């Protein structure tokens, strides 16, 4: 095996923001993420559901992922495991994801570097591929502000893909 430690830059400082013409990219911290699946999971939260291209507001909401799954953001504490009473499978996945927010008039153009993304093509799920990475992507707070969640281990990959693509913005 070859020593590739020089080939890959050490993990970045997550506090640094990147700005480019028309956008700001920054990392977010989120206190609690709960993965909830079940036959009626889409109705299992009292919060608004983020999908595409709707705009979700505030700190407490849930992300629609699939027919039978949501990801609750800053939701109430729930016990992990199978909840037979409510027919729900629950996992605390607070550390499973890394979070990036992109804001600004060029945000959609930046995202179009990583996928074919069109507000005129709605989707009931926020899960999609962006720069080849599995992410959850939706609008938050404003129509030019986007939140992206990718696997924690892919934080570097997502960040570099976004900030590199941002170099093409003029």
């Amino acid at each position, binding site marked *: 095996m070859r020593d590739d430690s020089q080939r890959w830059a050490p993990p970045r400082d997550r506090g640094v923001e990147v700005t480019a013409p028309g956008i700001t990219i920054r990392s977010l911290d989120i206190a609690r993420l709960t993965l909830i699946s079940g036959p009626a999971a889409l109705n299992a939260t009292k919060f608004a559901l983020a999908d595409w291209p709707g705009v979700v507001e505030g700190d407490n909401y849930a992300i629609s992922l699939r027919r039978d799954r949501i990801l609750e953001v800053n939701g109430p504490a729930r016990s992990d495991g199978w909840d037979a009473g409510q027919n729900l499978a629950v996992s605390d996945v607070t550390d499973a994801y890394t979070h990036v927010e992109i804001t600004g008039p060029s945000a959609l153009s930046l995202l179009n570097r990583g996928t074919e993304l069109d507000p005129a093509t709605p989707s009931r799920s926020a*899960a999609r591929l962006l720069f080849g990475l599995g992410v959850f992507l939706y609008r938050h707070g404003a129509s030019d502000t986007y939140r992206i969640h990718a696997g924690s281990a892919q934080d570097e990959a997502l960040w570099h893909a976004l900030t590199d693509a941002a170099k093409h913005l003029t």
Partner: protein
Amino acid sequence: MQRFPCPFCGLRDEREFLFIAEAGKVRPDTTQKISDEDWARYLHAIRNDKGAVREVWMHLTCGELFVLERDSVTMEVIRSIPLRTEAA
């Protein structure tokens, strides 16, 4: 680059999808006696039709398994059919 309609998510890039199998095969009940021929047919017999085909695909980002009808020559998508019913 094709786009396929996921029954739940709508139109998405082909890179989000995985071909699973041709539609229509049923797994034999393996707790019963099955001849080598029947099992081999289940495992290996593939129609690979030219033109209209019915296939099972998975939308990887949401995990949904569905039937996709498409044309294997023109790549035209005819329709997608959910295997799941909407939750009440």
